């Protein structure tokens, strides 16, 4: 699934929502580690969440978009061999970077009041597009062949997620978990990594928008 498709889906969804009370946009960032690759991919998420209704209600609906940027790639190595060059066997370093784009919907459930703020849980679902790039360093492809080489993949599909957080005034601290995109990998190129399932801790601020008159 291409990013353009995801973006058009998000715009269509946003335009279809009619606001009838106070709206709020939350912007957040933090740190994310990948649960589906033993924490090998560490990323910085940038998160924009739009509440079309009052987010402080018991149940409120939102749409959101999120981009994950790699902080550090995953470094590993593969073996390469040559028939005609000495040494015949060498190790080659590789670095794998992961980029994610998520667009989704969610429901926030306000639960306990604590210290002038409140705890909440969120259920989310949407579309996730993930891109992996693989860079081999100092690789002489003329004389050497990498055994079981890795390759970058781009793909996307549906996901779902669960978040738990605390909101006080307009500040939000949130812990989020998300499934990898549901992709069948029957005939996909055999790579050494899995599609990412980010576990992230973010801090953000909510900006209240003007009330709409209807």
């Amino acid at each position, binding site marked *: 699934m291409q990013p353009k498709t995801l973006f058009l889906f998000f715009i269509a969804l946003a335009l279809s929502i009619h606001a009838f009370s106070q709206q709020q946009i939350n912007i957040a960032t933090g740190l994310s580690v990948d649960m589906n690759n033993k924490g090998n991919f560490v990323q910085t998420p940038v998160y924009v969440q739009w509440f079309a209704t009052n987010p402080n209600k018991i149940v409120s609906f939102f749409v959101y978009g999120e981009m994950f940027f790699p902080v550090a790639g995953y470094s590993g190595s593969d073996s390469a*061999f*040559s*028939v*005609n060059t000495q040494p*015949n*066997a060498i190790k080659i370093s590789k670095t794998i970077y992961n980029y994610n784009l998520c667009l989704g919907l969610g429901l926030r459930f306000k639960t306990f009041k604590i210290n002038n703020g409140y705890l909440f849980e969120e259920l989310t679902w949407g579309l996730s597009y993930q891109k992996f790039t693989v860079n081999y360093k100092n690789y002489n*492809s003329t004389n050497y*062949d*990498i*055994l*079981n*080489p890795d*390759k970058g993949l781009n793909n996307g599909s549906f996901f779902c997620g669960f978040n738990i957080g605390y909101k006080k005034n307009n500040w939000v601290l949130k812990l989020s978990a998300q499934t990898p995109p549901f992709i069948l990998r029957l005939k996909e*190129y*055999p790579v050494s990594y899995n599609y990412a399932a980010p576990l992230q801790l973010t801090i953000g601020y909510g900006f209240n928008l003007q009330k709409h008159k209807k």
Partner: protein
Amino acid sequence: MKRSLFTFIIILSFYSCKKSFFYEDPYNSGLSIFSSKNYNVCSAYINDSAWISEYNNPSIFSFTPNTSPIYLSIDTVNNPQSDTLNIVWYGGFKYSPPGFVPFQEHFYLTFAFPVKKNFTKTDFLNWNGKLFPSGTTSTTVLFSSLPYYYPNNYSQMTGSGKIYFVKISSQPNNGTSISGLFEGNIGDTILIKKGRFDFLLDPSQINLP
């Protein structure tokens, strides 16, 4: 009648169920990746065109088993001092290189090695990690339209090559995994580059004691 037809189709579908997995090498367009995962595939650039191993599928009505894309065998008759180990692949071009004469687009590629008398499967397993030619072991490359053992195999061309058995190991059910690299040439007219193979051989494909 319908049940008989259904049974026939089921039997036909199991008719050579061994699967090969072709994943294109991102660094060598047209070739399979160099792997050690029993993907049952061999490929190489021959005169800069991609040549890929395949099953020799007879007519669906001939009731003859598909010819395996690979087999190993010992030739014991030609030399009283030593035997010859042959690794034979069958395959073809997607696009034949210009001016490529030999036979058709599909042919047998054989690597032949002189080995001691009574060469066994255990001796072959000890070739894990070895590159040939090595010491007194030379390597001969043959192209042929028929398997090398056919008498009067006129459509046969001979040259020399190198082969690197990166991994040879025993597998469950008497299987043998082999993967490696090769290259070679036949005079100045045929050049083999970037050859790679990855196979899980069952006992029928490896004729060694």
